[in-house]
């Protein structure tokens, strides 16, 4: 039998790949095993219909850490990010609001709704960016550990405290509020126009089963002020070739450093002997041995699936069961015959080269949540639309377009039961198209093909438990030293030599790469591999 690998990485999602690349770069022999025929997991590009390439799941890149791009030399391996030009909010009554990269233009747009808000908007941006700076060290390092009494840990907590101390009273107040308030309540303190608050508040609920009025959703607003492309704040972007290009660049980097990557290699079990991970068993019966195993899959799949409760301590199993997924979003990908015409801003323009939010009011968004609370998809959902073909000609035939619609809410647990989603799939797709038609009257005629992904599909096809896009809700009680289970938040697991590198580990979901990178670093620093 062949010499065992230093590490097997289960799952070729972008985090698994990042982890593999770092381990390979440090000279370890690494094997990545991906279940699907393509790499990337939820950060994937696929030619779903001939000529039309979709970022099937994740569609904008924001938090991908610049230091990872640099250290893994991703630009060299083909990564190219195209910044979004604008955030466009069409309204059903024909008005619209566009927020641009240019603050002056944004100001004018907002002033059409509220002079006061236009003045406050940039001040808000500054305050938030400042807080983003404060939060960045938290997402770029392993979670603080309040249970540790080691001097190093205490020092870290102290430093966090210092950060707090150095702030002005106003800043302290703002931070406290940000971490306890609902997105809407928080924005209410700054702005008066609903038209502005609605699309802003919505970032607080992405991937959670919460509403914009649910406390604890405000902090996610920071995301928008931490996103960076080329070091520039507040920018979100497309990857040329779709989000899968990010994963492909990471995979290229990993291969360059010597990693081996296999697709269509689903594993069935992680082999555990005497409390230690020893390798994996593939679904085809093949057994591969390794000194360490890293899982890039979510905690449920990893621990309750691949490892099995028998090999785990009871309270850890209980923690895994408590950890909440309850996916709340779906995706509708449309292949279009031509560029869609928004009745509020007809014609082509830069407003189509950003993200477009169907979020006309805070009540609209809250009602969308209410539908989901009681077990149905939103009749009128929040939709985040992008049309990457406007800036990236590689993804659609000339003159034609791809339109990606991220949709919330679509609760995994619909009242008929999750396995009944396939019967409701097209109705869900129709609700999305009907909603779009209120803003783009001719949308139906433009649709050449349509792909509808429900939370059930995200689970079945992409291995995301309960369709949660972030490997578990990013709610306050599931962050930092609670992610995924208290006491096991540093990529280590109760099974020796088994590590967790996916979005279910700190700092969580999104195309960031951080869990994968920090996992690799922890393994290497500790001499685990």
């Amino acid at each position, binding site marked *: 039998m062949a010499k065992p690998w230093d590490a097997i990485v289960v799952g070729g999602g972008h985090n698994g790949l990042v982890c593999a690349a770092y381990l390979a770069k440090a000279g370890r022999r690494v094997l990545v095993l991906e279940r699907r025929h393509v790499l990337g997991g939820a950060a994937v590009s696929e030619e779903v219909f001939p000529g039309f390439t979709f970022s099937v799941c994740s569609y904008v890149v924001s938090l991908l850490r610049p230091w990872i791009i640099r250290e893994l030399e991703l630009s060299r391996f083909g990564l190219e990010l195209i910044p979004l030009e604008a955030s466009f909010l069409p309204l059903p009554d024909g008005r619209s609001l566009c927020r641009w990269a240019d603050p002056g233009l944004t100001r004018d747009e907002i002033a059409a709704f509220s002079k006061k808000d236009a003045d406050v908007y940039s001040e808000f941006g500054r305050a938030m960016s400042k807080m983003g700076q404060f939060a960045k060290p938290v997402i770029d390092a392993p979670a603080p550990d*309040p249970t540790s009494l080691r001097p190093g840990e205490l020092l870290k907590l102290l430093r966090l405290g210092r950060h707090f101390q150095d702030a002005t*009273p106003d800043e302290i107040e703002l931070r406290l509020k940000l971490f306890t*308030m609902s997105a809407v309540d928080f924005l209410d303190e700054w702005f008066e126009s609903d038209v502005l608050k609605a699309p802003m508040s919505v970032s607080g609920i992405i991937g959670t089963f919460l509403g914009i009025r*649910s*406390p604890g959703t405000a902090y996610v607003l920071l995301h928008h002020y931490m996103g960076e492309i080329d070091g520039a704040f507040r920018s979100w972007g497309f990857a040329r070739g779709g989000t899968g290009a990010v994963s492909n660049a990471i995979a290229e980097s990993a291969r360059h450093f010597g990693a081996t990557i296999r697709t269509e290699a689903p594993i069935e079990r992680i082999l555990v002997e005497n409390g230690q991970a020893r390798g994996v068993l593939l679904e085809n019966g093949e057994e591969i041995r390794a000194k360490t195993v890293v899982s890039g899959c979510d905690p449920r799949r990893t621990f309750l699936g691949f490892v099995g409760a028998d090999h785990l301590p009871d309270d850890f199993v209980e923690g895994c069961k*408590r950890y*909440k997924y309850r996916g709340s979003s779906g995706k509708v990908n449309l292949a279009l015959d031509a560029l869609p015409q928004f009745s509020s801003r007809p014609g082509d323009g830069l407003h189509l080269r950003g993200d477009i939010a169907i979020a006309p009011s805070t009540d609209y968004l809250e009602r969308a949540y209410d539908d989901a609370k*009681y077990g149905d998809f939103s009749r009128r959902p929040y939709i985040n639309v992008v049309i990457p073909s406007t800036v990236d000609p590689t993804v659609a035939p000339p003159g034609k377009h791809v339109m990606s619609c991220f949709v919330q809410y679509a609760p995994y647990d619909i009242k008929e039961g999750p396995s009944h989603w396939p019967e409701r799939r097209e109705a869900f797709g129709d609700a999305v198209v009907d909603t779009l038609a209120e803003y783009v009257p001719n949308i139906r005629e433009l649709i050449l093909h349509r792909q509808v992904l429900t939370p059930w599909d995200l689970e079945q096809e992409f291995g995301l438990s309960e369709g949660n896009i972030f490997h578990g809700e990013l709610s306050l*009680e599931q962050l930092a030293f609670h992610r995924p289970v208290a006491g096991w938040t540093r990529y280590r697991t109760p099974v020796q030599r088994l590590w967790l590198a996916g979005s279910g580990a700190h700092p969580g979901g999104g195309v960031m790469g951080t869990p994968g990178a920090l996992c690799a670093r922890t393994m290497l620093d500790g001499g685990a591999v």
Partner: protein
Amino acid sequence: MTKRYDALVLGAGLEGLAAAATLAQAGRAVACIDALEQPGGVCARRTFHADHSVPGLLHELGATRRALCAGLDLASAGLAWNEKETALWVPPPVEDPEARGLRFARGEDGWHAALGSHAADTDGLARLFGFIERVRSLALEILDEPVPELFTPSKRELFALAQKAVRLRRLGDRDMLELLRVIPSPASDWLGEHIAHPGLRAVLAAPALAGSVHGPRAPGTAGLVLLRACTLEREPVGGGAALAGALADSARRAGVEFLLGQGVRELRVEAGSVRGALLAGGESLDARTVVSTLDPATTFVDLLPFPHSSDQLGRAARQWRTRGGIASLSLACSSEPAFRGTDDVSLVRAISASQLDELELAADALKYSDVPSAPWLDVVVASRIDPQAAPAGKATLSVHIHGVPFDVQGGWTDAARETLLESVWVGLEHLAPGLRSSVVGHELLLPSDLAANYGLRGGHLLGGELNLDQLWIQRPSAALARYRTPLAGLFLAGSSSHPGGNLFGGAGVLGARAVLSS
């Protein structure tokens, strides 16, 4: 001629009384001022129909900070506490009348529930309340002292903070982490982890959410359930009116002068310091200290003359959220009510919510300012706690209707009130069959009526919404949470200050102590 005092206490509700008594006991000359004719605020007796009255409008006084109020010697003012905790009755759900109801009470030997066929939850309850018991003393310690100084802590305060951290660590890794996980969680999740019985979940969550506009799916509501479970003890004999009466008595004995029946029109400010107050009737009072137990907006915006309602104060006041969600309905009945599903005629309190979604739906109505179509009800048979509430053989009930917004779309017209009442009758009929036909008189106080009658901003009964962002170091704002205000001599010590809410007496006593130590 202006009268001179050491301190003026604005508001003669529970906090105002506690603050005034504490100050007077320390030898200060204190006047306690209120627009209402009698002390007690919402806890004052309210006669609403012939010889039927309610001993105040509140349903839970068992979280009163008895340790903090110990110095006020309420016992010699005649106050006693019940021997047992009040049991809550949840009748069987409407759709399943065959099911058994649920009686929930915390007995002498820890929490227990008459779970009937739902004995399966015994273990879950034991786990839940085992945890609560373990974190309880730390919680009480934090609630019964002022919040830590965040902005410019002295060495001593830093040391105290470090001690607190050590106390937290002493819970052990497991409980400490669990505590940090539970506080920001939704109640529905936390309760769901331990308890299967829908009625039991509802009975644990419902009263805890009474000060919040949120339903049990909202993050932070588990923290509220925990807060209530840690603080709620036995109720005072005679209800809120008895508690208020004893506090007023204590204040009077300590020498507090009551100026009732007229409110304050304006605070007098000179050279950045408070100098006294001008009463509505025109009388001017001198004092170097003013302790307001009114809400921040009333205190800083309505009472402070421009330009002292400065940016910071004005902002804090505007941002303080006080959306009430409860209407109070008092019922005069010709006979004793009988709750559905039980023949226990000593039951004092029942709630109509037999599952968490009923709470969630009521919260939905609040969000959209709708007249709730199926509000949930919290019923207290006032005449069973207070013999004065009704003549012998008759009964008085106090009903809290949950999910009633301050404003509704189209305004609170007579028709809207009728629609609301109609749905309440339906709910009451389910709770206590035959009740409606025994009602001989009623009074409905919507949140807007509560605001008008009692000066409660937003109609909120507990000084401002209870949410994570409005508790502890943020009650009522990070800069104002230690009772002091930027204006020398002006203090804030009502239920919108820490610990606030229904932790009665806490803010009043701690606020008065802050005055005394400065």
